[in-house]
């Protein structure tokens, strides 16, 4: 049965990189009958929305910036509204290798409810990120028994029916952890596959403050808040 797949791309001031990302998404995907690309323009003031439209994507626009977590949630809700069977999350800054997309889909077809990429914790990744990602993944394992070695990776795919068990509240970067915690509590089978690690930017988005906030939230979720 061919599926409708929606690729949701949150974008905040990504005009320079977005076109390349959009054109690199493969057309041929396993068992996919129809492919929609949804770009969530998270209140950008540059040409992000125009670039996305030009490349043929569906553009959903936040009037003001809400954060990566909020952008992906809006994008996912748009995907469901369009009738998607499979939802993919992919960053707009070129850090998620498009050639790994068929393997993400394949993992779903083999029986996983959801799947995320796992990056290699060495060379191209800056040492601070290696430390932070390792630390958060270990804390997540210790507190929730979630075995995912790279909890912060935002390259993922899941079946649309799993959305109610995954849906998060965090508008910031903590959403990646939150969805794993919620999924675990609902018994969602969440697989991981290794992906190519790409680092292009001199630090842009995340920093130590984000790591600390995610840690704080993990602890508060454990305590039942």
């Amino acid at each position, binding site marked *: *049965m*061919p599926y*409708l797949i929606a690729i949701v791309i949150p974008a905040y001031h990504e005009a320079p990189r977005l076109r390349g990302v959009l054109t690199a998404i493969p057309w041929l995907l396993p068992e996919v*009958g*129809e492919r929609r690309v949804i770009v*969530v323009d998270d*209140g950008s003031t540059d040409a992000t929305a125009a670039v996305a439209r030009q490349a043929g994507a*569906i553009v*959903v*626009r*936040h*009037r*003001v910036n*809400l954060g990566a977590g*909020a952008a992906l*949630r*809006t994008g996912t*809700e*748009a995907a469901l*509204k*369009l*009738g998607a069977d499979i939802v993919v999350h992919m960053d707009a800054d070129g850090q998620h290798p498009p050639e790994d997309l068929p393997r993400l889909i394949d993992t779903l077809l083999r029986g996983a409810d959801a799947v995320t990429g796992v990056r290699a914790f060495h060379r191209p990744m800056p040492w601070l990120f290696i430390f932070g990602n390792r630390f958060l993944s270990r804390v997540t394992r210790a507190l929730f028994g979630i075995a995912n070695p790279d909890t912060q990776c935002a390259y993922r795919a899941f079946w649309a029916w799993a959305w109610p068990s995954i849906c998060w509240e965090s*508008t910031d970067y903590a959403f990646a952890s939150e969805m794993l915690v919620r999924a675990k509590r609902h018994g969602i089978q969440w697989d991981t596959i290794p992906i190519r690690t790409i680092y292009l930017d001199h630090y842009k988005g995340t920093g130590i403050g984000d790591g600390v906030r995610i840690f704080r939230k993990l602890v508060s979720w454990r305590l039942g808040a």
Partner: protein
Amino acid sequence: MPPAVQLLAFAFALAMAYLSYVGFRRRHFGLGGFVFWEIIWAGLVVVSLAPGLFQPLARTFRVARLLDLVVVVGMLVLGAVTYQNYVTVQRLRRQVERLVRDLALAEVPEASKTPRAES
């Protein structure tokens, strides 16, 4: 001549009382908020003009001088205001998020209820 702290407290209380009045006139808060804040500032005016009045009170609270009591109460008020701010900001954040998301999703067409044609 009263000490400088007293004058300072008096001037501060008058200024705040005026600001609260302006805030009320501009409907930044309701009558309840206005009365609440005016009572606070009026209290400060009284304390700043006649600290002796409250000396027995200071003794029962085991603080050495009246101004210490004022500082302690001030901290409590600050705590309450901070809490109030926090609650308000959280509510606003939720409302803005909801609004922005609804506006964004309104432009997305609903999938037809009929099952898609198999290709």
